[in-house]
């Protein structure tokens, strides 16, 4: 049996790093040279990042990282479909961090009622605003009640916290759906 967890978010939010922190195999990446001058990176993901958490025997959970740019939003929707859940990573050092969250919530609107979701906000130590509370309020405005936490995806413990919150929601949904 297989299942998947998706990491999405704007460019440079730490999706590839988060997958690397969890995967039992070296992640497969579809990075290519970046030609977008607005992005301060040499490379960028255009397909998806892929990793695996092996449970036992034939069981594993696939980890996917989506491209971050809006023009690849078709990949967000393809990958999030039928996932255990999706982690939306936000880089709070970006001036439009909140509108990034809006963008992903709007784009994934049709999927977020069926999958668990957690928001991880990075770089809050150096960029504390918008606050975590502000992100939670924005989620409520969009009609969602998802956990929002500050994270540093370079720390495996923080990535695990995101996944644990995802699992808690997924388990709750399964239990509530039992007849």
């Amino acid at each position, binding site marked *: 049996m297989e299942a998947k967890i998706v990491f999405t978010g704007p460019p440079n939010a730490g999706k590839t790093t988060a997958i690397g922190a969890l995967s039992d195999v070296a992640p497969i990446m579809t990075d290519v040279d970046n030609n977008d001058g607005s992005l301060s990176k040499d490379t960028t993901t255009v397909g998806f990042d892929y990793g695996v958490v*092996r449970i*036992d025997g034939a069981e594993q*959970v696939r980890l996917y990282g989506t491209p971050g740019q809006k023009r690849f939003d078709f990949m967000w929707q393809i990958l999030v*479909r039928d996932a255990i859940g999706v982690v939306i990573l936000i880089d709070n050092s970006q001036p439009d961090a909140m509108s990034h969250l809006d963008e992903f919530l709007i784009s994934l609107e049709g999927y977020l009622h*069926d999958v668990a979701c957690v928001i991880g906000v990075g770089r809050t130590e150096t960029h504390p605003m918008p606050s975590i509370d502000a992100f939670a*309020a924005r989620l409520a405005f969009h009609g969602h009640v998802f956990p929002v936490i500050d994270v540093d995806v370079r720390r495996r413990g923080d990535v695990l916290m995101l996944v*644990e919150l995802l699992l808690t929601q997924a388990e709750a949904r399964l239990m509530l759906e039992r007849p």
Partner: protein
Amino acid sequence: MSTMRLQPVGLTEADVTRLEVFLRFIGKRARWQWVLVRDGAADLLICAAGARRSVPSDPASEVAVLSGPGQPPQHALDRDIALPSNLDLETFQELLTKVEARMAIAAASTVAAPSPPMPVVQAVPQRSAIATLEGRFRLIRWPGAELLRSHPKAVRLLGFIAREAISMDRLETLSGLDRAACTEIVQQLLRRDLLAWHATASAPPSKRLASKQAPATEGARSRTTAPGELSAGLLTRLRMKLGFS
């Protein structure tokens, strides 16, 4: 689904026809239905560059300026959205997404506190709700880290009430926490105005049986057991593998 109004200003009939065709393809969005209006109030005005000055400034409306043939996209005012003259479907879709995001931001910044999307069935004085804990409770916003640090087991409970309104009895059963722990956590959430309260003790039968609306795209999850479908067992084994309690 709410309606958003798009009004062309000073555009050629060919451009207006193009907008009508675009709206036929993508006018029905996830949260809004966009319609073309010829006059009156509008949420988005798409105007020809030459007609920009005729558009009065209105903080409730967004303005997009269509450049002339052979002209680069240009803003007339800082908040205007510049569009190329050969507007294609993708650019139009991006325009609607941008306007929807701006509308969401504007609405969020004008409300003092977020309104829960689901109606609160009945307002109850805080004191009696805290005291009796009758009825059902639903989370309207995830609590901050400070509450989770002081009540680490709250996470077990939050996942349930984030999805639907649940009574204390059922919450105790679902979460595996004892009544005292559930009570303490729910009271803390009530004090922080993070819960919506529903007067009825049990959910109407239809609510339990009705499935959530699935995305109208291929691949929506079937509710019948199927090979590869998510199971509680898999989640438990993943939990153990990652070292969670």
